[in-house]
């Protein structure tokens, strides 16, 4: 019953999002929605490893960047964009497999620092190898339509959220959450922690790679280094924490909240919005563990306890 309801709501929201370009004709608003969808993809893919599996990855932009760079090069070389994106996703997987084994030798904060370092290394390397700005060729500019980009972002966001939902409700997802909660207890039940972490990393990387591909198709001109910037990682991490890690809705809520707030702040406070977000992030971690979704869960737990104590009073 509850599952059917969520399914219907998801279907209605998807249909509404698909219909948006029919009604929204303002490019600025459509661009804005594209950004929300991109961040939904990034935060939700981060959440598979960082939220469900508990491995806080601060090198997520590496996968986004690899997807972007591969897609851009292949697309400009005349490939079909979808095929180019797929290769971008596969390149992200290849990198994930390469770093997975050494990175997961590290635990907790050391894993996080390790991934941050890997992301920074890639950021610097790409900056050195591709110092020139990457601009769309004229023929692509002429045929450029924002609506196509919007649908591509929407498709990637839907695939990402759907994949996260399927994994979270599978046996593998159960194992991932157990690894997050208590790795050694999970192993004592027969859950192979390394395999679960690696699967989460690979899936997270592939989806971020696809998002990178959509970005490469969307952005007219940028430095190839830009998608590798740690800012993408930090933004998606913050969104997941603010909305609630380890939930499907959390990163979506976080992404919407973040993009809207960022817009409001940059209109009114110009350069100060990173400061505001930093403070907000600290406040969430300190006073709102589990983000918005965590707050909701605690309210439900309290109601449950209340119901129980009432039930115990009436049937001693």
């Amino acid at each position, binding site marked *: 019953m509850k599952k059917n309801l969520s399914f219907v709501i998801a279907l209605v929201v998807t249909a509404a999002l698909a219909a948006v370009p029919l009604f929204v004709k303002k490019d600025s608003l459509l661009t804005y929605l594209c950004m929300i969808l991109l961040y939904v993809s990034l935060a939700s893919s981060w959440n598979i490893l960082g939220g469900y599996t508990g491995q806080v990855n601060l090198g997520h932009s590496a996968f986004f960047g690899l997807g972007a760079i591969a897609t851009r090069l292949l697309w400009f070389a005349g490939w079909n964009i979808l095929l180019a994106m797929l290769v971008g996703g596969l390149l992200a997987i290849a990198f994930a497999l390469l770093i997975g084994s050494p990175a997961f030798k590290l635990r907790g904060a050391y894993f996080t620092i390790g991934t941050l370092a890997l992301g920074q290394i890639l950021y610097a390397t790409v900056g050195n190898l591709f110092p020139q700005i990457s601009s769309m060729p004229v023929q692509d500019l002429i045929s450029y339509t924002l609506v196509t980009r919007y649908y591509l972002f929407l498709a990637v966001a839907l695939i990402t959220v759907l994949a996260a939902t399927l994994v979270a409700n599978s046996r593998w997802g159960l194992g991932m*959450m157990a690894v997050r*909660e208590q790795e050694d207890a999970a192993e*004592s039940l027969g*859950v192979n922690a390394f395999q679960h972490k690696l699967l989460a990393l690979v899936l997270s990387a592939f989806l971020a790679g696809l998002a990178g591909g959509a970005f490469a198709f969307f952005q007219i001109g940028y430095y190839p280094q830009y998608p590798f910037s740690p800012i993408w990682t930090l933004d998606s991490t913050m969104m997941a924490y603010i909305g609630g890690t380890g939930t499907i809705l959390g990163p979506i809520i976080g992404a919407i909240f973040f993009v809207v707030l960022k817009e409001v702040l940059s209109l009114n406070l110009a350069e100060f919005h990173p400061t505001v977000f930093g403070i907000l992030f600290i406040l969430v971690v300190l006073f709102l563990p589990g983000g918005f979704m965590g707050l909701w869960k605690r309210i439900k737990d309290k109601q449950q306890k209340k119901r129980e104590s009432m039930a115990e009073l009436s049937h001693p």
Partner: protein
Amino acid sequence: MLKLTEIDTFYGDLQALWGISLEVREGEMVSLIGPNGAGKTTTLQSITGLLRPAKGSITFDGHDLLKVPPDKIVDLGVSMVMEGGRVFAGMTVLENLELGAYGSRARKERFETMEHVFKTFPRLKERLNQRAGTLSGGERQMLAIGRAMMSKPKLLMLDEPSFGLAPILVDAIFEMVKGINKQGVTILLVEQNVRAALELADRAYVIENGRIVGEGSGEALLSYESVRSAYLG
């Protein structure tokens, strides 16, 4: 059923177990008692593969456990309830139980097994969709044991199931463990609650400083002067 022969286990350079040999026969309830830091938990972890002994052998039902990866040992029918229960607090009771049946052998029959677990722990059925973190201490321990039962173990090992529980709950938990044993599950119990552990067990081993220093029927050990003075005061 389970046989440890002369095992030595190390934490890095530090030797924790010195030539431990013990045996648990099918259907038995065996207790392993001893003071803090004697090597009780280390012994259990050597069996489950969390730690690997440097020397000696461990066999279970004819399998050489030292050659089996830790995540496959559960599939053979060895299950452990860790100290403090170690339930997954952020997950529901149902999810915790499902995780107990993670191995492919147990997973197929998980719903039947769950009904069986509810017969021993009816409380868990009432709490099925609640997060484990909202359970009381006794309920958590029941969930931990129920979760271990979900793997359909032939041998159930329990590390201090009475730890941190109110006395009245301790008795209830021990009753449940005895009940599980009567259903045909072999039990290896590690306890600091020595009197209860010896009263319940068919046989017991006493471990001190990483060595087995005594062995006998529970009743016999209860009457030993050295055990009485050391553990029962």
